[in-house]
C-alpha cells in the first residue's frame, strides 16, 4: 500500500476509490501484528469490528453517499477511552476485572461518525500517572525512533503508534503533559486543547481539575480536522464547555501576519539541555521572533499542579488503595499512597494559586498571541533509566520530563507540541501556546511552520 502523507490524504484517496477502506484496514492490521510484538503500542486490536466497519464505508462510497471527512482512516485510542465491548484498562490490572464498556467514549463516537475506523486500544502508564509508559502489567512501549528508549507518557502507545506509522491518528489524554511529552519524544504532533474544550465522557479520569483529551497525528491539518470533529457540547461531561464550536480547519491557511509571538523566558529556559532550547530557537528563527517574555512563578505553578494531581488521583483510587494496594503498579503505588495523605489546606492553596496564576497569564495574553517554549528538557531517555543529567544536574527522569508542560496545563491553556528534527538526532518538541479557546491561532502558526518545513513528520 502506498504511504499516504496523512489521514486527510488517505481519506481523499478512499473517497476517490483509489483504494478501498477494506484494503487499508487489512494492511493496517498486518502492520500492527508485524510490529506490535516489539513496539508494544497496542493492548487490544479490534480487527474484526474494524473490517466490518471498513466494508460499510466501502458500500457507502459505492452507493454514492458521503462517507465523511475521515472515511476509512484507521485510528486507535489510549486504553483509558471506553470502546464498546472492550474492558477499559486505564493501564491497570485492577480495571481489567471490570465488565466491557457498554458504549464508546464520545470522542470515539464522533470520529466514527466521520468515517474513521477504530483499530483498538493503546498502552499507557497506569492510571495515567507517569511520563514514561513503562507499565509493569503490560510492558514498556518502545520509542519507534530508537527502540532502546522510552516513548514518553502517559499516552506513550498513542504517540508511538503514530510515529511507527501503524495508524495515522490516535487519541490520548493530558493532565500534566501526557500528550505533549510523548509527542515530543516520538517526533509527532500532539495537541492538548483548552481545558473543557473537548468532551472527556467515557475517558477514565485521573485528575478532573486538569484532565483533557486530544489527538496525535502526522500533520497540522490532521490535528485541525480531528479537533474540529471532536468539538461541541456534551451533556455526558459536566466539564465540557457550552461555548459553540469554533472550527479551525477553515482558518488554517490564514497565515500569521499581525500575530504577536514571543519566546517564554526565565523558568522555561532553565533546567533544560541546550538542544531543547535550540529546538525553540529553530522555531523562533523561522517565525522571525526575537522578543522574550517571563511568566512569573511558573515553578510554583508546576508545584501546585503536582499537589492537585496527587490529591485528586489518590482520592479517585482510595478504595483500591485501601483494599488492594499490592495490585497497583509499583511505579505508581507509593505516589498514590502518599497523595492520599496530603492535608486539605495544601490542596486548596494549590487551587487558589491556580486562580492567581491564571490572572498573570491573562495579563500576558493581553499583549501577545502566541508563546513558544520547549516541550521536554531533553530527548527520549533510555528505557529503565531512573535518573538523568540535565543542564549539569542529576534529576529524576519521571517527574522532570513534565517540567515545561505542567505549568501550562495547570491553567488549562491550549498547547500543540510540534516535532523538530535535526539531522541524525532524536526528535524534540516545541510547545506552541495560546490563550484559552484560541486553538485556531496555534494551528495557523503550526501550518506556517509546516509549510516552511521547519516542522514535519518523518
Amino acid at each position, binding site marked *: 500500500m502506498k504511504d499516504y502523507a496523512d489521514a486527510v490524504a488517505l481519506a481523499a484517496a478512499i473517497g476517490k476509490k483509489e483504494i478501498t477502506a477494506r484494503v487499508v484496514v487489512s494492511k493496517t492490521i498486518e502492520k500492527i501484528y508485524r510490529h506490535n510484538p516489539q513496539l508494544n503500542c497496542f493492548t487490544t486490536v479490534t480487527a474484526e469490528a474494524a473490517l466490518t466497519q471498513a466494508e460499510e464505508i466501502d458500500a457507502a462510497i459505492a452507493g454514492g453517499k458521503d462517507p465523511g471527512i475521515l472515511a476509512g482512516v484507521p485510528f486507535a485510542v489510549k486504553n483509558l477511552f471506553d470502546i464498546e465491548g472492550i474492558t477499559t484498562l486505564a493501564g491497570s490490572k485492577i480495571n481489567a476485572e471490570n465488565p466491557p464498556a457498554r458504549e464508546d467514549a464520545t470522542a470515539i463516537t464522533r470520529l466514527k461518525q466521520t468515517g474513521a475506523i477504530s483499530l483498538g486500544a493503546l498502552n499507557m502508564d497506569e492510571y495515567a500517572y507517569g511520563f514514561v509508559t513503562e507499565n509493569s502489567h503490560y510492558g514498556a512501549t518502545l520509542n519507534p525512533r530508537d527502540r532502546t528508549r522510552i516513548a514518553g507518557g502517559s499516552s506513550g502507545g498513542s504517540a508511538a503508534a503514530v510515529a511507527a506509522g501503524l495508524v495515522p491518528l490516535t487519541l490520548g489524554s493530558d493532565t500534566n503533559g501526557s500528550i505533549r511529552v510523548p509527542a515530543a519524544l516520538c517526533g509527532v504532533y500532539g495537541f492538548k486543547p483548552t481545558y473543557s474544550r473537548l468532551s472527556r465522557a467515557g475517558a477514565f479520569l485521573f485528575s478532573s481539575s486538569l484532565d483533557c483529551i486530544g489527538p496525535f497525528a502526522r500533520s497540522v491539518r490532521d490535528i485541525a480536522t480531528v479537533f474540529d470533529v471532536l468539538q461541541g457540547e456534551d451533556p455526558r461531561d459536566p466539564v465540557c464547555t457550552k461555548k459553540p464550536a469554533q472550527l479551525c480547519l477553515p482558518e488554517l491557511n490564514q497565515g500569521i501576519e499581525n500575530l504577536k509571538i514571543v519566546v517564554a523566558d526565565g523558568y522555561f529556559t532553565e533546567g533544560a539541555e541546550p538542544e531543547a532550547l535550540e529546538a525553540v530557537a529553530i522555531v523562533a528563527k523561522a517565525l522571525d521572533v526575537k522578543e522574550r517574555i517571563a511568566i512569573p512563578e511558573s515553578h*510554583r505553578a508546576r*508545584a501546585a499542579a503536582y499537589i492537585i494531581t496527587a490529591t485528586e488521583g489518590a482520592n479517585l483510587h482510595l478504595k483500591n488503595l485501601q483494599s488492594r494496594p499490592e495490585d497497583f503498579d509499583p511505579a505508581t503505588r*507509593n505516589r498514590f499512597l502518599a497523595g492520599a495523605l496530603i492535608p486539605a489546606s495544601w490542596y486548596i492553596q494549590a487551587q487558589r494559586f491556580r486562580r492567581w496564576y*491564571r490572572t498573570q497569564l491573562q495579563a500576558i495574553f493581553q499583549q501577545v498571541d502566541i508563546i513558544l517554549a520547549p516541550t521536554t528538557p531533553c530527548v527520549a531517555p533510555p528505557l529503565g533509566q531512573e535518573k538523568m543529567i540535565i543542564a549539569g544536574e542529576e534529576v529524576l527522569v519521571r517527574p522532570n520530563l513534565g517540567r515545561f508542560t505542567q505549568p501550562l496545563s495547570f491553567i488549562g491553556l491550549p498547547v500543540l507540541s510540534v516535532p523538530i528534527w535535526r539531522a541524525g538526532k532524536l526528535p524534540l518538541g516545541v510547545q506552541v501556546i495560546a490563550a484559552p479557546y484560541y486553538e485556531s491561532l496555534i494551528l495557523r502558526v503550526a501550518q506556517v511552520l509546516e509549510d516552511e518545513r521547519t516542522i514535519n513528520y518523518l
Partner: protein
Amino acid sequence: MDNRIEMTEQKEDFTEYVKQTAQLMGLKLKPEYLPGVVDNFERIAAIASLVNQFDLPEDIEAAPIFEP
C-alpha cells in the same frame, strides 16, 4: 551539621505522620511500602511548601468550576 540534624528529625516526623494519617485514611501500609511512601510524602511536602510559602491575596478564591 545543624542542617543535617534538622533534616534527620524532619524525616522521622514524616514517618510518624505517614503512619498515623495512613491509619486515619484506612490505608494498611505494608512495612515494605513505608519507606517509599515516606520518600514520596517528603517530596510532596517540599513541593507543597513552594505553594504554601506564596503570599496569596485573601480575595483569591479557587474556581469551583474552572473556566479558563
